[in-house]
């Protein structure tokens, strides 16, 4: 199958590569199908490209690239949305891809949303943006990237 995206041009994909957010994402409830695009030149960035809106692509980073000891908490409805067993969810940890959406703007340093990570079950390609209430993680976690050129002396 093919999709003409604004940022990456023509993307060829297999139906089983589609990531499905059954409820969409907050503020983007109609956006349910995405592709994970990983241009070699921009690793470790993973783009979440909408299959409905050619111009919509979220910039994401694996959460543990940002906070190495990041801990995810899942409520029963999260487990259900991802098709994970409630009894032994930890057994599926290796199947989960946990991404933080990155926000960049001209006038501010880039930030990552650690309060609401996108979690994808790579086994069945079901995904959900989880809200980590009470976790203490910020929705605007500063990325450890220098906004200015650091002086070298």
């Amino acid at each position, binding site marked *: 199958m093919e999709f003409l995206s604004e940022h*990456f041009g023509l993307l060829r994909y297999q139906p089983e590569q589609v990531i499905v957010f059954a409820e969409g994402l*907050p503020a983007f409830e109609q956006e349910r199908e995405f592709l994970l695009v990983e241009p070699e030149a921009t690793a470790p960035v993973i783009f979440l490209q909408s299959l409905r809106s050619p111009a*919509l692509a979220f*910039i994401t980073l694996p959460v543990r690239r940002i906070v190495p000891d990041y801990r995810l908490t899942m409520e029963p409805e999260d487990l259900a949305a991802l098709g994970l067993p409630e009894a032994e969810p930890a057994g599926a940890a290796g199947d989960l891809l946990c991404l933080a959406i990155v926000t*960049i703007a001209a006038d501010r340093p880039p930030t990552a*949303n650690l309060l609401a990570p996108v979690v994808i079950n790579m086994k069945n390609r079901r995904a959900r943006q989880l809200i980590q209430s009470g976790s203490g993680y910020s*929705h605007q976690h500063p990325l450890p990237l220098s906004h200015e050129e650091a002086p070298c002396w």
Partner: protein
Amino acid sequence: MLVIRRRAGDSILIGEQIEVQVIEIAAGRVKLGISAPPEVLILRKEIRLAEQQNRAAAEGVSSGLVRSLLSRLRQVKPSESTEDSKNPPALR
């Protein structure tokens, strides 16, 4: 901000039609019951933050700032980033 102390079972009223009752207080958590007209939107604040942050993130991508972010991440020149790559990007 108005600050009021309440015990479990107590309520506060907001305007004529909204009542917020403290149902239960447990370690670090409070259970609230809210009575309000159906047209009043009640949302956990984190959901609104997620909405706002998602909108801001989507705007950043269309503004063409991606390349500068990526060049910082990769410490490469902008000319080496995505758009000049001849190979189609990999999909996971």
